[in-house]
């Protein structure tokens, strides 16, 4: 078996007394498209946020291409990485938020160009050119000069994906990318994600879009109470859930 | 000369004694401002155009001009109009006039935050305006304004220091006197600063205590 792109081993995380991740282990190989489902509070968002160090890890490890993220060996024990150390690693991972989180004081073009200028140290001219190309590719060529407040939810999310893609990440983390969208706008974003899958992007996607996962996902992970309860090929897991918890979850979601 | 912390401590008792004047002036001022602020708020609610315009001008003047100048007006300028006031009286007048304006503005904000439904309920129960004011509006007004009123109290306390300029013997003036006779002005003023720090912190803590005590009753 090839070494995984991302190896999560025994990951634990608590907020005060509440343990939201209880020893989660997951291997992600290049080209995998993993859908993570579960009820709210099961830890799926925390999992994603631990992977790129937005949250600190209390136990276990996260390994990107052999490099530890967030919690690194230190002498005979472990220590947390500082924000400075996380910068390079974060630049290699794309993160798409449920609430888009576009920078409202910048145009769509500059939202996509800014990371290239600041993190990749490119010139504004070069960055804007690359950004424009990416926005055209995602069907937003006429919106480059618009501010986020002038864009629909679906357009904002696509800009947000463009912003993440333009950094050429090795891995994309998507935290419920379509949950904040009106139903008619969801398809636009799913179309973009579909193209990403076709290009071979490695993706971890927390979502409720079962249809998308069944068609395009390579693996489905069901989390409950901070643990991975079921995992496998999406078509198998969705048509024949093994646990009662998953069955009841699927009962409440259209799929 | 070297800075002497012992001297700071030595002067503290004298300054704390002088704080008695500060506290007395502040207390009278705050009481009067609360009273006049309330009166002005009720008058404003009557919505008599010329009166409200006058009140607005008054508030704008107070907010737009320095307290020191207002104090000079009360002490030096009023005699020109035939009103001769002693330093303490002039001081109380000036700071009260100053504070009442801000109290009125605070009350205006608090008034706007009272749910109108409460007034309507009281009115439909047949309560007379006087009763509505006394039993429904004012208690809520004061409770909602409490943090701002406490803040105003610290502002009044700090304002009394300016009365030294018109010869009122409170903390700052005492510090000036001790400072010049002892040739240690720095230490004395540091001590004065400590006294005010103490007074203001005590007031803030008291305010927090009051808020906590009334928090249960508010239920908003």
């Amino acid at each position, binding site marked *: 078996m090839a070494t995984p792109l991302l190896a999560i081993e025994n990951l634990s995380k608590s907020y005060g007394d509440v343990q939201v991740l209880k020893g989660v282990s997951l291997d992600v190989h290049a080209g995998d498209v993993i859908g993570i489902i579960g009820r709210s509070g099961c830890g799926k968002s925390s999992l994603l946020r631990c992977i*790129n160090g*937005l949250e600190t890890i209390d136990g276990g490890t996260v390994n990107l291409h052999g490099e530890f993220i967030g919690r690194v060996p230190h002498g005979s024990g472990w220590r947390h990485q500082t*924000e400075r150390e996380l*910068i*390079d*690693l*974060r*630049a290699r991972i794309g*993160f798409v*938020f449920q*609430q888009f*989180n*576009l*920078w*409202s*004081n910048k145009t769509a073009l500059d939202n996509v160009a800014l*990371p290239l200028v*600041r*993190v990749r140290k490119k010139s504004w001219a070069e960055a804007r050119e690359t950004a424009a190309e990416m926005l055209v590719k995602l069907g937003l060529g006429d919106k480059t000069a618009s501010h986020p407040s002038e864009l629909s939810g679906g357009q904002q999310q696509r800009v*947000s994906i463009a*912003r993440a893609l333009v*950094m050429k990440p090795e891995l994309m983390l998507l935290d419920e990318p379509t949950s904040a969208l009106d139903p008619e706008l969801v398809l636009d974003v799913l179309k973009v994600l579909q193209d990403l899958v076709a290009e071979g992007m490695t993706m971890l996607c927390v979502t409720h879009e079962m249809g998308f996962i069944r068609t395009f996902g390579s693996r489905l992970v069901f989390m409950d109470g901070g643990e991975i309860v079921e995992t496998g090929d999406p078509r198998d897991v969705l048509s024949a859930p093994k646990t009662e918890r998953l069955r009841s979850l699927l009962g409440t979601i259209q799929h | *000369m070297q*800075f002497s912390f012992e001297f700071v401590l030595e002067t503290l008792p004298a300054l704390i004694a002088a704080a008695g004047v500060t506290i007395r002036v502040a207390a009278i001022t705050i009481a009067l401002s609360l009273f006049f602020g309330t009166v002005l708020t009720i008058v404003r609610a009557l919505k008599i155009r010329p009166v409200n315009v006058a009140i607005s001008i008054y508030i*704008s*003047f107070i*907010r*737009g001009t*320095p*307290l*020191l*100048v207002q104090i*000079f*007006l009360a002490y*030096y*300028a*009023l*005699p*020109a109009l035939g009103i001769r006031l002693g330093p303490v009286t002039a001081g109380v007048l000036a700071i009260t006039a100053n504070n009442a304006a*801000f109290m009125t503005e605070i009350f205006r904000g608090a008034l706007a935050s009272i749910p109108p439904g409460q007034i309507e309920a009281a009115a439909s129960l047949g309560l007379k305006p006087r009763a509505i004011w006394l039993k429904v509006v004012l208690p809520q007004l004061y409770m909602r304004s409490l943090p*701002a009123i406490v803040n105003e109290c*610290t*502002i009044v306390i*700090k*304002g009394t*220091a*300016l009365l*030294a*300029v018109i010869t009122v013997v409170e903390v*700052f003036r005492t510090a*000036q006197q001790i400072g010049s006779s002892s040739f240690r*002005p*720095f230490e004395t*003023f540091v001590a*004065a*600063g400590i006294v*005010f*720090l103490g007074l*203001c*912190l005590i007031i803030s803590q008291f305010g927090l205590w009051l808020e906590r005590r009334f928090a249960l009753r508010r239920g908003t």
Partner: protein
Amino acid sequence: MIDPQVIIDHWPYFAAGIWMTIQVSLAAIVLGFMIAFAVALLRTSRFRLLRGVASAYVEMLRNVPFIILLFIFFYGLPFSGIRLPEQVAGTIALSFFASAYYAEIIRGAMASVPRGQVEAARAMGFTYGQILRDIIVPQMWKFALPPMAGITTMTVKESSILSTITVAELTYQGIIVQGMTFAPFEVFFAIAALYWIFTAVLVRLFRIAECRVGSAELAAAARSPVASKYLTLEARP
């Protein structure tokens, strides 16, 4: 009897006073704001010691009357061997005073910038300095400007206290003219009117700036208790 001629005759004094007040106030506002920015950053530092120092600084400057702070600074300077002209010392003291109030406004305004946008930048590998420069500072003005108007007028009014260390600003000139003319009512009323105009102009300028930066939409939306916690941090206008 009240005689406005007195004011007109001594106009040069008032003009000089206004000019000095403007210089002192503007310098104190700019310097105070810069100091405040540093203090605000310290207040949100990861290190408890820095946070504590910044908090103590703010508490001390806000709970002591400015006149006493001024005298402490002025009489404390000789100890450190520095001799400054009154105007400079007074302006610096006023800057520190103003900074304690501006710092709280800045801190609140920075925290009011939507956290998600800050997080997105973090997730992309921005340094904190870059986040401040590109996202927080550009967006904090619509939160900061309304309370800043109040603190700025407060600073202009407190500048009158510099008259007590013989800085020749407007109030001092008023005292001088009063001493020459024995017309306290006319003189102090004129002084008051001049301050009144100055502060009114300042407030107007802030309102214009607030419009350009979008504070109005904010005021309408932010009737929430959380928002007013940040929006009412000023001493008062």
